[in-house]
């Protein structure tokens, strides 16, 4: 802790000096420009003006993120005060420093920076990670809150404030009714950034969250329209407003809202189509998502449609297809990069919200106005929510409870969007712009800080239903599907067109038409949820098994735990399903962000249940270790001087790979042994020498179609395999290990097309193996845990195309496990080639 405070202090000193230096430098350079005469060659020169702009931007980003670092250093504080409030506080301090140095607020949150560079990525992130089923299931409620709620908020606030002004409660103000309407429209909108920031720490149940959150996103349509309409009215003056204008205003709402959404859908479809073709540029295919998302935002902005709606629907529409189409590492890239951008932007926004306040020139204080605004905002929010919910509950299947309504009302936080709009007010037309600006700031601070701090205790006190940890068990998945089908049937029987019927119709339409259009053909065949869950669970079993084995092995192999990266802390728990660790318990989260996630391949059900149960106590640690090991082996890319080629780290993690692969091979061999088919296995090892510029295997031979996966780990090329074999057809004693190489065992390969029979290099297999057949579970044998000593000897592995051969462990204990073996194990032959 002390170190962080010291670093904080030094940081501020640095900042102080920088801002001093800036002003000095700018003065200095001006002088230079006047009399620039070079008398001698300068060895180095001070080129501040040259870099000032990007330098300042980068510097501010660093400062904001360092603030976040300091805040997150201590969880005790962040448990009580939400991070956003603390960031605003830091903003105050920083603003004070800059003010102290410059006597002017040189750095403010300009509306352009905010709306063009800071907001889009946050919204894109929310759209991309939006739970679609939940969102569309509650869309009715969300729309009611967003449209009617926001209009009510704006109108009621405007009327009340205007009434109070007439009543004289605010002193001597001269604000017309239209201007009040304008002010009402900009402050009425619930802000998505603030909602995310505050609700992130309180895990309320998902319906509640989606209602507040969806409202905060969709009300942008209303806000934009209201703001522009009122702005136009203010410009036109009160006299020109007649029925025509009002009707035009209403029409413009529909155009803006629907136009924005449609534009977003169009861009979403564009992205999906694009990812369908980016097989050959997997390196940058993740970038398309960001660029096209940003373009959708800007295009909507250009057409004066609702930009937020556009980018939200772009994200919503494309998420399913790009997740399926893109290679898994690209999907991971997109996911993680989105989080970085979104979180980073959010930090910057809050810090600057704080900084912008420290500016003497904008402060106008009018107690009555400010206090009344606060009061009315709260009151009308509660009133509006309760009335609308009462109406909604008559149409909802599951009514929204009273407590949930309280939270919805209390969660109506205002944020930076309101501030941005306030800055955009025109001073010439609205004389009291500064007052409005200050009021907006105060409202934002109040909601974010006060309401943010009290949200968590309120939720606990009111016993709000929390988010349930989603189970990933097969039976739940199956049962949910059964329910879905049941409901459609019942709706049909009872002759009503209900929600489920619509959903079913949409699913059918999507399966029939949209999938053909937007998904890669290879992907289309494999989208089955139940199977995906099954596959994940199997992998989880496998890993728990291996972990248990390791635990019983030599400790030398266990790494230091400190290298383990804990993701759950950094991201919202909602997103922790992406990042969470693998737990030992079979019925808990599975790391969806893992590299194995989307392998829709036929897999073998490992009968490791008993083993896993026995090993469950105290396996957790080894789980973490295991996860770390296994993933590091896959994901660490040694970045050489090549921007188009990632190669895998070939260090001890290789041994992990061998481990895994051996297990797979054994399963494969058992399966094929029973089936009487030649196992088409090959593990090739190449040292770094051989790993020259291997292209992503998308370009490798069609023969090795089964090797094709976007994962650069699996690098095969015909040439390489050719290297490994001199005598095709004969018993290949060679064992070559290629780092990152995989084998054809369908269990673990991220083969996008498991139903296609595996292409085996013709010199390897005598018979075709139908990879879609998975070994029946009874035959999946529990494997002996590999001890490290075993592993070393694993490198020279014997390979055999003889179907009756079984795989040997170079150790005797292995033989005990071979209950089902058809052949007794024999001693491993010496390795032929060991490169």
């Amino acid at each position, binding site marked *: 802790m002390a170190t962080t405070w010291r670093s904080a202090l030094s940081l501020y000193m640095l900042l102080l000096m920088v801002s001093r230096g800036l002003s000095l430098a700018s003065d200095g350079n001006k002088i230079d420009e006047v009399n620039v005469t070079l008398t001698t060659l300068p060895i180095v020169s001070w080129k501040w003006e040259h870099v000032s702009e990007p330098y300042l931007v980068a510097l501010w980003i660093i400062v904001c993120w360092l603030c976040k670092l300091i805040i997150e250093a201590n969880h005790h504080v962040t448990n009580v005060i939400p991070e956003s409030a603390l960031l605003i506080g830091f903003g105050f301090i920083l603003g004070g420093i800059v003010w102290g140095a410059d006597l002017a607020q040189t750095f403010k949150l300009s509306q352009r920076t905010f709306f063009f560079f800071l907001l889009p990525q946050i919204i894109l992130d929310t759209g991309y990670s939006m739970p679609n089923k939940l969102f569309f299931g509650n869309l009715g409620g969300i729309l009611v809150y967003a449209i009617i709620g926001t209009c009510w908020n704006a109108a009621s606030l405007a009327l009340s404030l205007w009434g109070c002004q007439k009543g004289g409660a605010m002193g001597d103000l001269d604000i017309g009714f239209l201007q009040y309407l304008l002010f009402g429209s900009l402050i009425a909108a619930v802000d998505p950034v603030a909602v995310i920031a505050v609700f992130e720490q309180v895990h309320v149940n998902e319906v509640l969250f989606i209602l507040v959150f969806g409202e905060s996103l969709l009300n942008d349509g209303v806000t934009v329209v209201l703001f522009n309409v009122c702005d136009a009215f203010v410009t036109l003056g009160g006299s020109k407003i007649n029925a025509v204008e009002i009707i035009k205003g209403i029409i413009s709402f529909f155009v803006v809202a629907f136009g924005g959404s449609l534009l977003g859908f169009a861009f979403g479809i564009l992205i999906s189509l694009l990812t369908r073709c980016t097989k050959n540029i997997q390196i940058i295919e993740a970038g398309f998502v960001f660029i096209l998302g940003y373009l959708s935002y800007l295009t909507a902005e250009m057409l004066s449609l609702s930009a937020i709606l556009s980018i939200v629907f772009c994200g919503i529409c494309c998420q399913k297809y790009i997740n399926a189409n893109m290679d898994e590492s690209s999907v991971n890239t997109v996911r993680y990069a989105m989080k970085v951008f979104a979180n980073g932007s959010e930090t910057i926004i809050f810090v600057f919200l704080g900084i912008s306040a420290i500016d003497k020139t904008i402060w106008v204080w009018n107690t009555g106005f400010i206090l009344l605004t606060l009061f009315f905002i709260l009151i009308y929010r509660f009133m509006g929510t309760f009335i609308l919910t009462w109406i909604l509950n008559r149409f909802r299947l599951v009514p929204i409870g009273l407590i949930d309504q309280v939270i919805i009302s209390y969660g109506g936080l205002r944020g930076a969007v309101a501030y941005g709009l306030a800055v955009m007010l025109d001073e010439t037309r609205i004389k009291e712009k500064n007052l409005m600006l200050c009021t907006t700031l105060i409202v934002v601070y109040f909601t974010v800080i006060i309401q943010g701090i009290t949200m968590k205790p309120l939720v606990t006190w009111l016993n709000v239903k929390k988010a349930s940890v989603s189970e990933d068990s097969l039976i739940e998945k199956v049962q949910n599907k059964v329910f879905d089908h049941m*409901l459609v049937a019942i709706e049909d029987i009872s002759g009503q067109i209900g929600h489920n019927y619509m959903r079913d119709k949409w699913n059918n339409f999507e399966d029939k038409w949209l999938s053909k259009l937007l998904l890669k053909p290879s992907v289309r065949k494999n989208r*089955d949820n139940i199977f995906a869950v099954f596959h994940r669970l199997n992998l989880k079993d496998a890993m728990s098994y291996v972990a248990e084995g390791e635990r019983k092995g030599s400790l030398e192999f266990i790494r230091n735990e400190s290298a383990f990266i804990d993701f759950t802390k950094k991201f919202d728990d909602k997103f922790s399903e992406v990042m969470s660790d693998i737990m030992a318990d079979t019925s808990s989260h599975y790391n969806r962000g893992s590299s194995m996630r989307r392998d829709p391949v036929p897999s073998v059900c490992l009968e490791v249940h008993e083993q896993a149960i026995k090993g469950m106590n105290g396996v957790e640690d080894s789980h973490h270790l295991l996860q770390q090991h296994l993933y590091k082996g896959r994901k660490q890319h040694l970045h050489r001087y090549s921007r188009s080629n990632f190669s895998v780290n070939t260090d001890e993690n290789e041994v992990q790979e061998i481990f895994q692969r051996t297990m797979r091979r054994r399963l494969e061999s058992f399966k094929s042994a029973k089936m009487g088919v030649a196992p088409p296995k090959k593990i090739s090892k190449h040292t770094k020498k051989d790993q020259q510029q291997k292209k992503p295997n998308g370009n490798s031979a069609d023969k090795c179609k089964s090797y094709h996966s976007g994962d650069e780990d699996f690098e095969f090329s015909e040439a390489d395999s050719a290297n490994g074999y001199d005598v095709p057809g004969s018993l290949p004693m060679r064992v070559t290990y290629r780092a990152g190489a995989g084998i054809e065992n369908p269990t673990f390969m991220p083969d996008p097309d498991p139903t296609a029979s595996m292409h085996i290099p013709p010199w390897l297999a005598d018979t075709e193996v139908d990879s879609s057949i998975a070994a029946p579970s009874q035959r999946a044998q529990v494997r002996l845990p590999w001890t490290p000593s075993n592993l070393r000897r694993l490198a020279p592995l014997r390979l055999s195309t003889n179907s009756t051969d079984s795989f040997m462990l170079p150790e005797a204990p292995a033989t005990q496990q071979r209950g089902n073996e058809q052949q007794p194990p024999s001693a491993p032959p010496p390795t032929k080639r060991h490169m």
Partner: protein
Amino acid sequence: MGSRASTLLREEEIEEIKKETGFSHSQITRLYSRFTSLDKGENGTLREDQVNFRGFMRTLAHFRPIEDNEKNKNPTASEPLNSRTNKLLFAFHLYDLDRDDKISRDELLQVLRMMVGVNISDEQLGSIADRTIQEADTNGDNSISFNEFIKVLEKVDVEQKMSIRFLH
């Protein structure tokens, strides 16, 4: 059961159905007209399983949303048809076709086969079924009893997932 007149709904019947299932009067009449329109053969039963109107209503009653006030009405009466347990029992019976109060592997396989796509082979499906039973089976008899079924689904929001709104 020849003439149509005999299949028209009588008031006493409506009352009985109302008490048994909890539907309102208008809902019952509406569903009755639906029943008659489905009942092409005009013999008072739906063709396939010879379900008469009472059975029809009883089945549909399982899908009513759970209402809070029902819990307080009569603690001694048997549970209403749309209680959580009864809903789960209905779902259980979807699997358990031979009514032996156990979901065996074959029964599960049948349901799974109907629900997953064509891309999954029989062996894989068998593995999935095995694994599913493994997850739920606590007493090791390789089949899922009703209690195990309830236990394993305790986190699932059955009330919401197995209800539809019936129009008035």
